[in-house]
């Protein structure tokens, strides 16, 4: 594919100025102190051909449909457990399983309205799913605003390539929220507040979708209905809450009693079908790193289809055969703690000293359910503009590991946003791309032809 990005790379300073102008930031807590920083942007886009995208789109829709069916099943009939496809230990010992959600039927049967599926492309061109994020996946706002800015600074680039529009993400969200709301009232985005790491995104998506950004204390429940309260004690009914607050803080009367971030009694309103929660509570059971192993099996079980997307080769020490393999080959594997997220709790066997390897093995032996192990995928490096002083490369570019978070929005239909968040590691020796770990991001171009 002939892609010319000189105009973009030459405009890097302009892009950064626009980013600063729009306050494109994310927050990080370090040693208990909150700091906001600009999210480093690389002007060289990730390019996905039309054919690759068609394949990804079909695979992503399939995967998310299966995950939604799994969630329904887990909180209702539990057929997949009874049929021995997923061991019950993996469901009931998952931190994300919420017994309080048993028999609750969300609007339209949809649990994961917004799914962030993390993928990597291998050097052989094969895509692998690394992780499903079904609770409150973040990151869509960054490519949205990056596209707006890059189109301004490099219009010729966009005139000379046939790139799919990506600024319609807000429309996808709005339509989905309208469907879930079903005319009950206003839709709100519930944010934990200014000092949440993704606050920029909460406020930006509220602006772009036309939803109201609600803070803790703005909402209350009366007669099992949710209301937004005004300065003069007036109220308006809320029909849909796109909540960016974690499950355990959503309702202090049901979950964490000390939570000031949630809405007392919102679970009762949700249970009686008077408000839609986007995403549903309890989704963590399906994006648990242990459950990930079973997703291709879910596709076959619920949809009677062959899985289109592949998982990275994964081992569960819970199974004897995998346990033996992991302990014998730990040095070649990446080990993940199933209870961690955001790039934390991920260790590469090759990076550990003998002593640390033994410690890790001991942990796996004592708690095999807590860990998964994966083969290290030799994934494709992406070109990024060298922003270091060393200028180690002759052409001004260096290669870094990158992933792709694809966003799948499910309302009455399941749709894939024709873009995504491409995150890259800024450290040449690292596979970890998370913004909280110092990673940057790129625009993702899906080509139309």
């Amino acid at each position, binding site marked *: 594919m002939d892609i010319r990005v000189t105009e973009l790379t030459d405009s890097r300073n302009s892009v950064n100025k626009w980013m*600063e*102008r*729009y*306050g494109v930031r994310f927050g990080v807590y370090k040693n208990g102190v909150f700091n906001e920083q600009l999210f480093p942007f690389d002007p060289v886009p990730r390019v996905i051909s039309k054919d690759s995208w068609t394949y990804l789109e079909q695979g992503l829709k399939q995967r998310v449909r299966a995950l939604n069916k799994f969630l329904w099943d887990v909180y209702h009939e539990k057929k997949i457990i009874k049929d021995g496809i997923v061991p019950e230990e993996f469901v009931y010992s998952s931190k994300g399983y919420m017994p309080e959600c048993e028999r609750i039927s969300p609007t339209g049967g949809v649990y994961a309205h917004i799914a962030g599926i993390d993928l990597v492309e291998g050097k052989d061109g094969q895509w692998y799913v690394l992780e499903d994020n079904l609770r409150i996946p973040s990151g869509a706002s960054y490519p949205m605003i990056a596209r707006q800015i890059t189109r301004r600074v490099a219009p010729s680039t966009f005139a000379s390539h046939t790139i799919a529009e990506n600024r319609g993400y807000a429309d996808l969200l*709005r339509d989905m*929220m*309208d469907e879930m*709301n079903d*005319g009950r*009232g*206003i*839709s*709100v985005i519930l944010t934990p507040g*200014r000092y949440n790491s993704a*606050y920029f995104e909460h*406020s*930006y998506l*509220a*602006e772009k*979708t*036309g*939803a*109201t*950004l*609600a*803070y803790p*204390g*703005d909402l209350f429940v009366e007669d099992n209905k949710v209301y*937004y*309260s*005004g*300065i*003069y004690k*007036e*109220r*308006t009914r809320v*029909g849909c809450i796109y909540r960016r607050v974690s499950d355990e803080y959503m309702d202090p009367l049901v979950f964490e009693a000390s939570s000031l971030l949630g809405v007392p009694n919102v679970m009762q309103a949700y249970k009686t079908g008077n408000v839609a929660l986007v995403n549903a509570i309890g989704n963590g059971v399906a994006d648990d790193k242990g459950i990930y192993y079973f997703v291709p099996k879910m596709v076959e079980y619920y949809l009677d289809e062959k899985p289109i997307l592949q998982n990275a080769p994964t081992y569960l020490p819970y199974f004897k055969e995998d346990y033996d393999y992991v302990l014998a080959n730990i040095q070649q594997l990446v080990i993940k703690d199933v209870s961690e997220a955001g790039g934390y709790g991920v260790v590469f066997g090759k990076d550990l000293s003998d002593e640390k390897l033994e410690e890790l093995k001991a942990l796996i032996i004592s708690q095999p359910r807590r860990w998964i192990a994966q083969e290290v995928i030799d994934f494709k490096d992406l070109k990024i503009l060298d922003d270091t002083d060393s200028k180690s490369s002759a052409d001004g570019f260096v290669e870094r590991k990158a992933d792709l978070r694809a966003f799948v929005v499910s309302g009455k239909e399941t749709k894939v946003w024709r873009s995504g968040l491409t995150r890259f590691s800024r450290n040449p020796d690292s596979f970890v791309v998370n913004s909280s770990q110092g990673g940057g991001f790129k625009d993702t171009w899906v080509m139309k032809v």
Partner: protein
Amino acid sequence: MVKNTIISANKANSLFWLGRYEERVYITLHLMRKCYDKMIDGEMEEYWPFWQELDPQGVYQTNDEFTLGMMYDDGNPNSVMSAQTRAMDNAILLREEIMSETLSYLEMSVALLKKCSEKQETNVMTLQPIIDWSLAFWGAAEQRLQNHKALYIMMIGRNIENLDMLLRFEYSYERIAQAYDSVKHYSRQLPGLLDEHMESQLDNLIIREKFNLSDLGYKNKLLAFVNQLVRV
């Protein structure tokens, strides 16, 4: 999507203080420019009244200390940096109300202030873009705020701050009566926002026959009532 016309207590508070702080930025810079002009080649007594009002605690001793402190000292609540940062702190909570485009003028102002502060730039005129962006901010707010009540709360904040500064700097009766009138104009759209008792006190005090800002008791009473006029 169903449109929400209700403003929460939190947002009303942020809107009001955004209006106040942004107006404080504008007025402080306006006064700093006047003062700076006199400091170029004037005598101390010509700019001393500005110093006294802008730095009532008398923190700064030299012209450079005063200029740098009033522009960049975030620890000084009277500085441009402090007011601009507080304006931004409130604005950031209101992106979906005021829109990113409007917010961007404040982002640029904060960024410029930080850059000038790093360089310890003493020429007040380098901050001229902040005046321009402040005016652009208000223009954008007026044009883009779809919820008129939100705009009125901001405008009330803006005019309360203006009134406060006019009183402190002992402007004429006409200017003060006009600013008070503006507060009342916007509050008519938002019944209940003004404290009735404070309003009636001010109605009785801001009249030509009683107007005398050289009477410190009168001036302080006005300032106290103005600052307690709005209930957010």
